[in-house]
């Protein structure tokens, strides 16, 4: 028989109180998201329509749609990830699977950590100095490469983490039967860390789509009537568009500003949702 001594009762009530407090903190995370989304959607409702996402801006951006900005953001994010993902994943595979603990590895790791900590406006200036200098003028390519440099260290870090989550014992078991390092990576490590790698990459989509500073001087423009014809064109972008119409001193109606914000947020949330679905799908196939 259990007896409820005062000590046991006290422990139980402390247990309940701490659980409640921690749970409340966790639950409070939902509140800002619901408020932000709810507030934005409510404000933007009058302007949200098919035309808004499929048409060009009219009458000084006070009416019409934001198609060029959506297209520009799409191009920049797609190109930046097409560049950053292979470099980042391969670098992470090297660092996690091949590199020995020597000065070279330490220097690379230090560079990755510090690159991740560089403010985005500094990335923008670097982009101007490095990429715009080469392309001759700000353009989608320069902006995308700047975004790639910005997302690269985070992709490396998240990929390394996903690789490190595959138990060391699996690798040793492979090596013990005569598999090479690359065979082990190809057949055991990568298939079992793919979900983590993809999740990390996809989360960088929303970051690249949301940043304004890195594209500010490198390729995004305030207004452009047509869609970009090549990667050497400049383009509008959602984040840049939002920034500029919001700081124009009330010339552009509030609903258009909120509408742009909702489209940007919608894109980001849709991408995150994809990441979550992927993770659930891969976890269901997890094999250990």
């Amino acid at each position, binding site marked *: 028989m259990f007896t409820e001594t005062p000590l046991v009762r006290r422990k139980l009530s402390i247990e309940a109180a701490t659980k409640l407090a921690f749970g409340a903190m966790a639950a409070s995370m939902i509140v800002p998201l619901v408020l932000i989304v709810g507030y934005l959607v409510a404000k933007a409702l009058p302007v949200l329509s098919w035309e808004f996402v499929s048409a060009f801006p009219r009458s000084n951006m006070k009416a019409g749609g934001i198609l060029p900005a959506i297209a520009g953001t799409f191009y920049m994010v797609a190109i930046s990830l097409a560049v950053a993902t292979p470099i980042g994943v391969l670098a992470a595979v090297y660092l996690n699977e091949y590199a020995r*603990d020597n000065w070279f590895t330490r220097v690379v790791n230090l560079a990755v950590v510090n690159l991740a900590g560089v403010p985005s406006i500094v990335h923008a200036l670097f982009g101007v100095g490095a990429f715009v200098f080469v392309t001759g003028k700000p353009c989608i390519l320069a902006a995308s490469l700047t975004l790639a440099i910005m997302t690269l260290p985070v992709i490396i870090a998240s990929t390394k983490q996903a690789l490190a989550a595959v138990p060391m014992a699996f690798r040793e078991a492979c090596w*013990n*039967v*005569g*598999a090479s390092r690359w*065979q082990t990576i190809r057949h*055991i490590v990568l298939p*079992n860390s793919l979900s983590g790698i993809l999740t990390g990459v996809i989360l960088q989509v929303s970051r690249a789509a949301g940043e304004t500073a890195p594209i500010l001087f490198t390729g995004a423009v305030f207004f452009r009537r047509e869609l970009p014809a090549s990667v050497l064109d400049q383009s509008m972008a959602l984040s840049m568009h939002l920034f500029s119409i919001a700081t124009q001193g009330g010339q552009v109606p509030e609903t258009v500003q909120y509408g742009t914000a909702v489209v940007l947020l919608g894109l980001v949330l849709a991408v995150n949702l994809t990441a979550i679905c992927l993770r659930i799908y891969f976890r269901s196939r997890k*094999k250990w």
Partner: protein
Amino acid sequence: MVTRISGERGVEIEGLSVWYGKKPALEGVTLHANRGEILGVIGPASAGKTTLLKCINRTLDFVPGARWEGSVRVEGLDVRSVSDAALRRKVGMVFPLPVGLPLSVYDNVAFAPRMAGIRRKAVLDDLVERCLRQAALWDEVKDRLGMLGSRLSGGQQQRLTIARALSHEPEILCLDEFSIAVDPVTTMRIEDVLVELKADVTIILVTNLVQQARRLADRVAFLNAGRLVELDATGAIFGERPREKMTFDYVRGRFG
């Protein structure tokens, strides 16, 4: 292709010393295992039994800070002169706790042959069946080869590990306390398998169960604190008069 050179010896170890950092784990161990025999290796904790095995297939390289001196020859070839992959295909390793690769039962066994370039399904099918039979697992899994290896019971997983260790057709088979996670009946079945296998494979059996060494081994090496105390025929080690008093005490459970 590595060809068999000198006569009878599957594994020859000479003056082997190993350090983990500054700490010595093996000091000047010299022994050999003949082809067609089971060499039992017994000794108390931290005698260096596992370290000895790790030198044979050079998995000691995975241990940070470990270094070794002396010579280890497998089938007459210095283990430092061949590539990791080639060496480890020659040497099958079974560890105390089974590690199933996150693959199906079939793919676990077919993994090593595939990595060695065998692609034909008929060949793989035969190989998988033979290895699973040798590991006394075939009858239990033949109808569910597609199931994940990790869904098997602990004892079955250990037999799957043994099947995998046999799948690259090694000439040396090292077993490190294989029976820790296995029930007694299965242990007996695997022991029978080892006796059958020893005609083709040099077997080194590290065990804490001295009676297991007595049942299976042709010769037994007794290690203590990194040194080889005595190596002799099983009958002599377990007899009334082994050369060292320490051996006598250990095999009777009075020490260790």
